[in-house]
């Protein structure tokens, strides 16, 4: 399956707070960022943690402005995120 995103794409992280394990850190939910690069393809940790079989899908380095994450700060934070956690910016 083709990767949903590529370097330079503007994305927004999901806001869902799942009941189980996830690797989308709480501070990075519902925030706009930019895909820096693809970081390989891996089974989704959320599914593996529940003992489900999970097919590899793209994982990305996504860069966020601190001001978007925390409302302050002049640094950036790069978080590694599965494509399941991301939507195109402006998309639903």
């Amino acid at each position, binding site marked *: 399956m083709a990767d949903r995103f590529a370097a330079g794409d503007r994305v927004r992280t999901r806001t869902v707070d799942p009941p189980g394990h996830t*690797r*989308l*850190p709480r*501070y*990075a939910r519902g925030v706009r960022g930019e895909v820096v690069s693809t*970081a*390989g393809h*891996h089974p989704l*940790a959320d599914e593996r943690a529940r003992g489900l079989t999970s097919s590899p899908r793209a*994982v990305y*380095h996504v*860069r966020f402005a*601190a001001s978007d*994450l*925390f409302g302050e*700060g*002049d*640094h*950036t*934070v*790069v*978080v*590694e*995120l*599965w494509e399941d956690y991301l939507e195109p910016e402006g998309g639903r």
Partner: protein
Amino acid sequence: MSTTHDHPHDSAPVAARVRHVEALLEARGHLDPGEIDRRIDEFAAGGSPAHGAAIVARAWVDPNFRERLLADGNAAIAELGYSMGSALQDQKLTVMANGGDEHHVVVCTLCSCYPIALLGPSPGWYKSEAYRSRVVRDPRGVLREFGLELPGSTRITVWDASAESRYMVLPRRPAGTEEMGERELAGLVTRKGLIGTALV
């Protein structure tokens, strides 16, 4: 997904529960006495900050290697005989270069993911809740507490090891080291420098 097994606070209820489970597994013959500690030692013995330091020193003396290291960390360290395979899987290595007005620092906010193969077991502060929660929000302030005062013009990037990659910082080569050989240069590199909480 923590890949370390330290017990910094043995009084913690979790530590007590772990010891209890371990004792039961031993009593029922699933584990030999001391097997877990032995396995952990074997796992940790593969990694040492000396590996990271040797990689940095090579990158300082060989610009072509530096380029390859930043482009594909796994392939470049394999040239020196290192791999990221001492963990459960061969992890992707991303190396970020400090220099100019860029500074990188590594954290795992969700647990304590760390490039053990290149840096050895992680320091206690790396696993502390204070470091993990604060460095993403206020890296300048946290680095100041480490004694690292960065100019206001320095752009800081915090890398959160939230998935499968592991990260290592390539510090800037200190001034005045032009005459040094690779081995001597490697001796300058500290674990904190490889995490980004020190300059070198």
